[in-house]
């Protein structure tokens, strides 16, 4: 029987080893780790508990906190993670031994190039994939969370297939929200909802075919999927800064407005043809045998 009570989320700090383009927590994950907030309090019997970050596996308190939760009778202990640290088999086994039941794994692409673009960490997908494999070997179950962006929304069916092939039981698609880093690069990151909506039916069909639970933008298409997902966690609610001017390959000269553009227009009654055109097209009027233009 599934719990109808909301999952309790326990925040273990902003520190993260990915640097996702859409991260709602902004640059806080890159800050040097400080003392993590102590918000666990006491656990209650029968609770469903999710540890979130940042990247909670970077917190050395995770193992003991998960063990505490389980000892207190928590029924379901979930860790929201990029799973990179789990590529080390000892760590995956330690999580399971501490009482963690399942993972909510962040996967942002169906290919390494796509995923690593989002995380801005080369090689991160390879570690994530290795991590979920070690997790399964250790007896951990998992769902996959994908933040839908302009660069991955066309590939959601492929992501669903990859997730299932890795052993995921559910897939959660979340909106890229204009907070944190996504607020600073919203044009590059946040897709048009109308275009995303066009691909959702295919994802739903494919997930059903694969037997993959699906949670769409916070709403569960299959209630059993909910227990694999902890939500987007704490946002950086600081008002978004204006987008920094993005460097481009354009030169300053190319960016500058042209002076007096209206002067390029010459409205006259008398039209000029004949010899005057030879001055514009000199190579067309060059004597026979001369090199022509272009």
């Amino acid at each position, binding site marked *: 029987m599934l719990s109808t009570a909301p999952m309790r989320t326990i925040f273990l700090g902003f520190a993260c080893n990915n640097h996702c383009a859409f991260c709602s927590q902004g640059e806080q994950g890159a800050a040097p780790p400080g003392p993590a907030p102590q918000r666990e309090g006491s656990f209650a019997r029968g609770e469903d508990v999710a540890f979130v970050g940042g990247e909670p596996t970077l917190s050395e308190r995770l193992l003991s906190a998960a063990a505490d939760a389980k000892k207190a009778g928590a029924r379901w202990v979930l860790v929201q993670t990029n799973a990179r640290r789990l590529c080390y088999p000892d760590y995956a086994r330690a999580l399971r031994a501490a009482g963690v039941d399942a993972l909510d794994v962040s996967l942002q*692409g*169906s*290919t390494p*190039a*796509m995923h690593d*673009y989002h995380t801005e960490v080369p090689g991160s997908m390879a570690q994530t994939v290795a991590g979920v494999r070690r997790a399964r070997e250790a007896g951990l179950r998992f769902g996959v969370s994908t933040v839908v*962006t*302009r*660069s*991955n929304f*066309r*590939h959601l069916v492929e992501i669903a297939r990859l997730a299932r092939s890795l052993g995921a039981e559910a897939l959660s698609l979340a909106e890229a929200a204009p907070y944190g880093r996504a607020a600073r*690069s919203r*044009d*590059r*990151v946040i897709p*048009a909802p*109308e*275009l995303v909506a066009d691909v959702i039916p295919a994802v739903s069909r494919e997930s059903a075919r694969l037997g993959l639970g699906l949670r769409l933008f916070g709403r569960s298409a299959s209630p059993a999927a909910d227990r694999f997902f902890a939500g987007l966690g704490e946002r950086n609610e600081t008002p978004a800064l204006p*987008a920094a001017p*993005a*460097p*481009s*390959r*354009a030169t300053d000269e*190319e*960016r*500058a*407005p*042209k002076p007096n*553009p*209206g002067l*390029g*227009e*010459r*409205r*006259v009654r*008398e*039209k*000029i*043809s*004949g010899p*005057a*055109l*030879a001055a*514009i*097209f*000199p*190579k*067309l*009027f060059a004597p026979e045998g001369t090199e*022509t*233009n*272009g």
Partner: protein
Amino acid sequence: MANIGYMQDVRHCNQYCRFCSHPETEYMLDVETAKKQIDDFARREYFGIILTGGEPSLSPNIPEITRYAVSRGLHVRMITNGSKIAEMPIARSFAEAGLHHYHISIHSCRPEVEDYLTGVKGSFEKAAQALANLSLLAKEFPIAININTVINADNADHLDENVRYFIGKFPEISHFVWNNLDPSMGRAETNRDTAPRHRNFEVSLNRAMRFVHASGRTFRVERVPLCFMTEFAHCSTETRKIIKSEERTVHFLDEKGTIRQTDFRHLKAPACGLCSLDDICGGIFDIGSFYDPAELAPLFVDKEAIVRKVLSEDDHATLAQPAAANP
């Protein structure tokens, strides 16, 4: 290859479009110079020419220029606002001379928007009359009717409404061209509010492309980066020219004179370096001045599939498709 040569016949116009990239000069192409241009295109084995302007139909030389180009084996098209084609005797004289392919420039199916953009009240009505006249002439001549639309801030939200309207009203239309506004020269530099944001036309352009494609018609899109038209990347003018190593030559009736364009890559943003389509994408025209590189997002789609599709299509057949051949 389907290299096309552009011939500006005049640079004056009976409209005053807010985004015109080739505003008026005092020059007018005479028949002697036109023949030299045509001979040059024929020598270069170009597929055809496009008569443009200004408003080329204001030139008294169109029938003679057309007849000469046809005699040299060139396919002839005209980009026109339709104001003269709206007069049936003129339309017929062009058709009889061998001018059988028309790109009618019309930017909105909303008359008040069209008239505002062109700066001339009644221009929508005339363009619609031109489409009606060409539809009639298509029963006698192998006429291809296309629509050219400049994407701008005032039609960015209803490009899809445009195609539904025009196809519904004029089923003879076989092909659409969307040109994103060229802000680098001309009046758009003064009317800076006319330049659209890519994000603002992304949805309506995609719906328009899907509608036209589903109708069995064809289209091309110019100056739109592939991350805003991914599903139809093979229909990007720049992408096709890059893949096919095509060129185009424009004879401008101003001090620029003859420009032979062989590079169709505009400027890019840093994110483009990660995009799987980077080397077949034109990027953003006039980046940084009007258009924002921060709007570009990398794609991770299959480039080879797009290349194969471009190479498998026959531009000659597509571009010169007469109205009678359309569904």
